[in-house]
């Protein structure tokens, strides 16, 4: 506790409630707090030697990336160094390089054998000039095993209305946003100065993806879409607030080159188990679309805000976790006036590349209690996920006063 107080924020000492004890986990799992100092932490990468890299969406002492190393073997980072003078979300480590994104660009940093950053002030500039219009501007990144880099470019809109989120404003047809956002773009991981181009769009019809991962069992890209908001606000004639709290589904998609998941023209209704035409495009909550788009592999309840996705390849956790998916649900806001939901990490078992059972809550109570299940009052909001070399998983927290990174391990 004393160590935690020295290293962590004072408020945790005064509150007397170590963030580690707060998480509710399945039997046999234990959470350790590695730091409480990484406010606005988004995605995270863990090197084969245990060194942690985390991307921040606000600069901390002028730096937007932090490297955390445990040099004395006590299990907690004691050497913390910052670099990169830009905010952002994306953080991914592959081979000898650390990849990082701002809200417009992707950079990579060469690492030495101890995962020190060789030229922290001179990264290679891999992708530049991606769209940032505020809404849904984070650029999540992941690499496959063939030297390709995948970048999410979120749509700066809820449902591609003429006037965003305005009641009665129709959907634009075709949606002009899709030429430069609302999808996943593919680049070469080692080629500098790439930007938009004819061959780079990998998948479209995705409103906003924050959590994504390369599934090495299927050798395909999986993404978590943030579904649209405000069905009952904008169309009270079709949905009441209870229906709108859980619709549309937060969808997991398995993507291939050319995938089209249908935003903004459709959304997926997990209760009717079908694609529904968007009301801005003539839908009434029941009518299916005039053309079918790709179906999700899993459809979660609405507005949970999936910000992290990790396929578990480790050997530390029990066998059922192998190749399954962990998803960090940041926590809802668009369920109001109904109760909010999320603020947890869930697990979905996979077998032969497909979900093989129901999803279950894995790590819960990030908010800190039922009275704190609001985006503004939650103590922590889970965001990034990574797997460490020993098979533990890491969870970040981007809440304003949160800043916690947990390591979750299994002990028989």
């Amino acid at each position, binding site marked *: 506790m004393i160590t935690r107080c020295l290293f962590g924020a004072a408020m945790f000492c005064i509150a007397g409630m170590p963030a580690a004890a707060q998480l509710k986990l399945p039997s046999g799992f234990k959470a350790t707090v590695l730091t409480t100092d990484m406010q606005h932490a988004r995605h995270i990468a863990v090197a084969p030697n245990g060194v942690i890299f985390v991307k921040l969406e*606000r600069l901390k002492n002028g730096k937007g990336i932090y490297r955390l190393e445990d040099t004395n073997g006590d299990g907690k980072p004691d050497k913390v160094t910052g670099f990169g003078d830009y905010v952002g979300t994306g953080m991914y480590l592959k081979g000898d390089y650390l990849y990082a994104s701002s809200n417009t660009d992707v950079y990579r940093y060469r690492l030495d054998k101890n995962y020190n950053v060789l030229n922290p002030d001179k990264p290679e500039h891999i992708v530049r000039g991606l769209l940032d219009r*505020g*809404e849904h*501007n984070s650029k999540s990144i992941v690499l496959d095993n063939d030297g390709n880099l995948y970048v999410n470019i979120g749509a700066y809109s*809820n449902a591609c209305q003429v006037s965003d*989120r305005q009641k009665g404003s129709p959907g634009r047809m075709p949606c002009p946003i899709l030429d430069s956002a609302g999808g996943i773009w593919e680049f070469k991981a080692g080629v500098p100065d790439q930007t938009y181009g004819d061959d780079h769009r990998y998948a479209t019809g995705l409103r906003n993806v924050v959590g994504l991962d390369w599934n090495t069992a299927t050798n395909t890209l999986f993404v978590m879409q943030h579904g649209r908001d405000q069905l009952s606000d904008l169309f009270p004639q079709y949905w009441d607030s209870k229906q709108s709290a859980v619709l549309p589904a937060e969808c997991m998609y398995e993507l291939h080159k050319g995938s089209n998941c249908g935003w903004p023209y459709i959304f997926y209704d997990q209760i009717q188990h079908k694609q529904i035409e968007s009301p801005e495009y003539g839908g009434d909550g029941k009518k299916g679309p005039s053309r079918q788009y790709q179906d999700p592999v899993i459809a979660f309840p609405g507005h949970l805000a999936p910000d992290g996705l990790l396929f578990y390849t480790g050997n530390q956790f029990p066998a059922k976790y192998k190749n399954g998916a962990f998803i960090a649900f940041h926590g809802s*806001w668009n369920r*109001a*006036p109904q109760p909010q939901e999320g603020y947890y990490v869930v697990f979905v078992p996979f077998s032969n590349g497909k979900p093989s059972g129901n999803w279950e809550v894995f790590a819960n109570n990030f908010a800190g209690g039922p009275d704190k299940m609001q*985006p503004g009052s939650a103590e922590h909001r889970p965001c990034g996920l990574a797997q460490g070399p020993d098979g533990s998983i890491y969870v970040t927290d981007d809440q304003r006063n949160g800043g916690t990174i947990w390591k979750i391990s299994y002990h028989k």
Partner: protein
Amino acid sequence: MKINAIALIAAVGSMAMTSGPVMPAQGGIRASITRGKQVYLEQCLACHQADASGVPNMNPPLIKTKYVLGDKVALVKIVLNGMHGEKIGDDDYTGVMAPHPDLTDQQIADVLTFVRNSFGNKASAVTPAQVKTIRATNKPPAQ
């Protein structure tokens, strides 16, 4: 008696602001707040939340900010024209607020009076006459 006292205070506050009608709204400030709460539930709550604490990084809080407590002209124009991408204090908010020109002068006056007198806020009422004047010279945002 209590209601009358509040109405009087609001009326005096209102008189100092405009040369128009002195009453803040039909039925006094208490009635305006009651009506405004209903407008808030229907138009504002989904994004700004039940306790007006907002959504970090997306939708700003409506608690004791200069936007809510300050210049009424700017505040009315936010409702009429919407808002996008504001820095409030050290926090950036990237959410999109739609314009609400469809709300009546009375509804805008009521909801702003409600917000300015709820969630720990305390400020003078906004009157329909003030909204009408501001709307008359307001330039709607380009589409």
